[in-house]
């Protein structure tokens, strides 16, 4: 069974239909890119996947024991206040909150999980630093570590490289590919079609009719894919 299955999902945002009858399934270990211009419904699709908004029609089925609150989510950086006083460790640790059940405090298992993910992303030296004083790339790595703390199977990223310079962006994609290679399923929303095609195994482009759903190679050879790749290359 697939990890995630969209069964003729329809979505609306602010009264407008942004997706209509979308069906596809994500297998464990795949790297999906949801691409398209602003307002094409990619963020709405992702929010439905996270259970933040309801489906207007159809349904999203999760397989392989994945629960809706066990998806690691990396929101757009603009969703977080720039001046929030929190240490890197506090932020990463807060990712484990879903594993704790009704316990009021973090236990040893959660602290170890946070430490292991910080170690993997090279964040341990920054553990006590304040989140607000980090560079954009470091902040994204902190949020990635937090997202990894929330999941064992599936990461969902919303425009993860907005505002990052090209060097840091390349580093971030390298990290994502490494995490994906280790078996983590990744679903990423991005307006950067070029980068998405380079990293993803599958592409969903919701704004065309019918929406494009297929592998990265199929997308490169499709009319819509060629059009977008040419446009963004200029």
């Amino acid at each position, binding site marked *: 069974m697939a990890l995630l299955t969209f069964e003729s999902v329809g979505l609306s945002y602010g009264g407008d239909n942004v997706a209509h009858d979308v069906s596809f399934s994500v297998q464990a270990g795949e790297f999906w890119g949801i691409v398209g211009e602003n307002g094409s419904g990619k963020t709405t699709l992702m929010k439905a996947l*996270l*259970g*933040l908004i309801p489906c207007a029609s159809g349904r999203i089925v999760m397989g392989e024991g994945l629960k*809706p*609150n066990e*998806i690691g*989510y990396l*929101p757009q950086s603009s*969703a*977080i*206040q720039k001046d*929030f*006083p*929190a*240490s890197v460790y*506090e*932020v990463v640790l*807060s*990712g484990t*909150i*879903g594993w*704790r059940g009704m316990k*009021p*405090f*973090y236990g040893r298992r959660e602290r170890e999980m946070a430490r292991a993910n910080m*170690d*993997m*992303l*090279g964040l341990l*030296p*920054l553990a*006590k630093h*304040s989140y*607000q*004083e980090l*560079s954009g*790339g470091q902040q994204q*790595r902190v949020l990635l570590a*937090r*997202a990894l703390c*929330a999941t064992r199977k599936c990461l*969902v990223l919303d425009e993860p490289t907005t505002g990052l310079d090209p060097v840091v962006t390349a*580093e971030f994609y*390298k*990290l994502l590919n*490494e*995490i994906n290679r*280790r078996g983590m399923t990744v679903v990423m929303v991005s307006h950067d079609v070029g980068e998405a095609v380079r990293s993803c195994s599958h592409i969903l482009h919701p704004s065309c009719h019918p929406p494009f759903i297929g592998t990265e190679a199929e997308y490169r050879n499709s009319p819509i894919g060629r059009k977008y790749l040419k446009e963004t290359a200029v």
Partner: protein
Amino acid sequence: MMLASYFQNMPEIMIRALVVGTLVSLCASLLGVTLVLKRYSMIGDGLSHVGFGALAVATALHVGHASMAVSLPIVMAAAFVLMWLTEKRRMQGDAAIAVLSTGAIAIGTLLFRLSDNQYQDICNSLFGTASMALLSDADMWITVGVSVAVLLLFILFYTRIFSVTFDTSFAKATGVHVGVYSMMLAALTAVTVVIGMKMVGAIMVSGLIIFPALSAMRVCKRFRSVMITSAVLSLVCFFTGFFLSLLIEAQPGPAIIAVHVLAFLVCSLVGFLNNRIRARRNRSIVVEPPCKAQ
């Protein structure tokens, strides 16, 4: 001497005031951090005006001796309405607050007049009682019970409150019931406003909530240290302000808030100097390698 005679003649009353003040200061300072960070500071301010109106209702109903039993539910209802309006964007939050607070002041003032009360009552509600010793037995026990409950809830839900405050959509995606926590926050704020109002008055109670958090954020950059600093500052300012008010024979409310203003200025200066030193040091910081996984 004034201070000594206070200690000798009214030890029990003093202890009462100090216990209530300590509990209220702790509640206000902890809650303040979340309210300021969630940009809800003005909700606290709006609620304090509703609190004034609620006190007027209590006076009109001739239950002034247990005014909190009346004002608590009224202010809590107002808090839920404000939170609901803000979250659902039914109305612009700041406009809703302005409407509610001026409305409550108007109706409250009229009620005070109609119930044939002394000008003193209005003054006390607005600027705090001349001495916290005037707290009735009923009100004191309500204050103690309610503030202990606020503190317990805050400690038990501390990690979830952090999660919801830092990043609402992530918290929601990991299964935290964000709506429940917003409403809990509204209820806790309402409660803190009502109990704090007795101490420093309706006009200044939001200062009790906002000042310690703001001051702490000037000097601390981690959530937990902000919380702890805020609580400690709040207690220090309360005790300093309270004894200052005895010395100069003024009302405790303005004295406490004045000390908070002073603390804020000091913290701002310390924070400013700290940032300059840190900026100079950070220029030489080395960026570490991104991933050791490869």
